């Protein structure tokens, strides 16, 4: 399941969808808008995507991770639009037979996503705004 959407997600719903009878471990990562980033107070965060390409890149990444770590299923939901501190931005959920693969797969996915998927984050502070460059 790959989604680039304005809508929020339920982790429970996603986990239900990706589990199967071989699943022993499900690892999920939720990225959240922090109130503060590098010492500056965040008022708003905007997330922009080249949507069709982002879905394509995420699908490729999913295929790659499935094979590399022998996973059972992967879901990635990345939100776009305007957000406030505390809002969910991204969900990566990985179902695997055992926990080591599930952890390794989830961490790989978020690391790679931040390098290659056409998504851009703008942080709006009290006193200005910046386009964040490079995942951190």
């Amino acid at each position, binding site marked *: 399941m790959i989604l680039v959407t304005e809508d929020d997600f339920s982790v429970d719903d996603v986990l239900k969808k990706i589990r199967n009878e071989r699943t022993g471990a499900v690892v999920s990562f939720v990225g959240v808008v922090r109130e503060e980033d590098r010492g500056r107070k965040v008022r708003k965060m905007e997330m922009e995507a080249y949507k069709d390409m982002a879905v*394509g890149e995420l699908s490729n990444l999913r295929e790659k991770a499935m094979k590399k770590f022998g996973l059972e299923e992967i879901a990635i939901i990345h939100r776009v639009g305007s957000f406030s501190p505390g809002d969910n931005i991204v969900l990566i959920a990985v179902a695997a037979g055992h926990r080591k693969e599930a952890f390794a797969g989830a961490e790989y996915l978020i690391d790679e996503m931040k390098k290659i998927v056409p998504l851009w984050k703008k942080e709006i502070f009290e006193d200005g705004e910046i386009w964040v460059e490079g995942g951190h």
Partner: protein
Amino acid sequence: MKIKVKFFASYREIAGRSEAVLDLTDGSSLGILLEDLKGRYPKLGSLTDSIIASVNKRYAKEDLVLKDGDEVALLPPVSGG
């Protein structure tokens, strides 16, 4: 040939637009298109970093030869997640 160009994030703000359609000589490469765009949008031209771009939703190198109807996108360094 006609090439559709999409500008994202900081490049969209720098170019002052999110889309453009360019008429290029047949056989032009992505590199030639990027030079053309830097001429039209001087603030893009003043960027010191090389511009990453996609053609038809895949990352592409500057020597890729474009064809009529291609969709090119200018992609600032990504920061998802």
